[in-house]
């Protein structure tokens, strides 16, 4: 059945896209459509006009002075397979390979996953621990927003209705001598593939040669109105050796700072426990390695 829209506009460059969005209030931008089409069909979203962002040249990954720049229309499949992402930002590659299943990953885009702002968006926690920034464009010009400030609530972001995401910037990571980086994305759900995360965790720890934690970044999904960093658990770990006591204290801090809800996918108590288990497993892995 056709989607209930009246117009689909196909701009050829980003500037034309934002002009069309400004000229047609209520229009929605669409990239891969893997989430938007479902929402339009179920009547959870309505729009007279869609603006197709597929032909703007926003797909692709490039290395520059500011780090790795991933175009907003880059698909999950491309991100998961990219050697630079896998080496430098492994949690992002792992998350991209766990969004939906392969036919979704070949169509769903990074920009779409972020713009939809699901608390369960799998690519969000890895970007939060990477201190990623989003480049946005509107008729008023371009601006850069830290990933940590992009999400405003379930389904809500600071993106204006006539604004589009151009790309995501991952600042370069530098590892000191004799330091070892551990990074992982893990999610919990009823099945390994094709599920919306009940809980997700992206974690990065750099262990110094003396065994202490030199750098730590933790971010969680589906346990708060937006994907977010777990700052209190990070504070516990910062500078410490990963002894049993420190690990237990960090897990307890994480449980305390979460604000999960009951919904169709899981009760709040389960989310709290599952998030704790994911962090505990990661810390055990780092301490053991």
């Amino acid at each position, binding site marked *: 059945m056709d989607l209930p829209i009246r117009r689909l506009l196909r701009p050829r460059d980003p500037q034309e896209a934002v002009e069309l969005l400004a000229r047609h209030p209520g229009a929605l931008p669409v990239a891969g459509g893997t989430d938007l089409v479902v929402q339009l069909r179920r009547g959870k979203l309505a729009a007279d006009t869609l603006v197709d962002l*597929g032909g703007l040249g926003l797909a692709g990954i490039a290395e520059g002075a500011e780090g790795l720049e991933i175009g907003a229309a880059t698909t999950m499949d491309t991100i998961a397979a990219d050697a630079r992402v896998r080496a430098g930002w492994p949690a992002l590659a792992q998350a991209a390979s766990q969004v939906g299943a392969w036919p979704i990953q070949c*169509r769903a885009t990074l920009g779409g996953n972020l713009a939809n702002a699901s608390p369960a968006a799998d690519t969000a926690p890895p970007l939060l621990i990477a201190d990623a920034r989003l480049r946005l464009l509107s008729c008023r010009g371009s601006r850069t927003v830290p990933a940590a400030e992009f999400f405003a609530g379930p389904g809500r972001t600071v993106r204006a209705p006539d604004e589009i995401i151009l790309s995501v910037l991952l600042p370069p990571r530098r590892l000191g001598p004799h330091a070892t980086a551990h990074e992982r994305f893990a999610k919990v759900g009823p099945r390994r593939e094709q599920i919306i995360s009940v809980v997700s965790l992206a974690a990065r720890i750099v262990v110094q040669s003396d065994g202490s934690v030199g750098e730590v970044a933790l971010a969680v999904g589906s346990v708060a109105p937006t994907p977010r960093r777990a700052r209190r658990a990070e504070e516990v770990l910062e500078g410490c050796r990963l002894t049993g006591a420190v690990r237990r204290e960090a897990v307890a801090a994480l449980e305390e700072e979460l604000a999960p809800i009951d919904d169709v996918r899981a009760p709040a108590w389960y989310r709290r426990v599952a998030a704790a288990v994911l962090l505990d497993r990661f810390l055990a892995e780092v301490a053991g390695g």
Partner: protein
Amino acid sequence: MAEGVRVRLRLNGEDREFWVPPGRRLLDLVREDAGLTGTKEGCGAGECGACTVLLNGRPVTSCLVLAASCDGAEVVTVEGLAAATGEPHPVQRAFVEAGGVQCGFCTPGVAVSGAAIVARGVRDAAERARLLSGNLCRCTGYLAVLEALERAGEASDGEA
């Protein structure tokens, strides 16, 4: 009245042009406008994979793809897997040999994903299963399907 949109496709190796409503899904273009009813609609929400087609060589659930966003693209449906001579695709032959078909509803989508998996040259069985995880089959239990993909992979390795 909604404005019609022109969509030019290379569909199963043939250049075609369609005028469709702006909200038409690629699935409906394939089935209704092109008359290729091998592609099936299952869940209509991108979860079952019955509607999988190749879009520019990569598998996508055509129920979630807007036809108008495919202008200029190459699309291959299950009807386009076989060679022009009518010779079945290695995946199709392997399905017959391994008994990978039961009720058949998921088969067009599985065959299309399977062809993409074989084209990618995936040798690891767990990775083949991961790539096929978006295609639900309620009859076979997947064993014969995965065996077919393994055979098809070996057959195309032999040809290469």
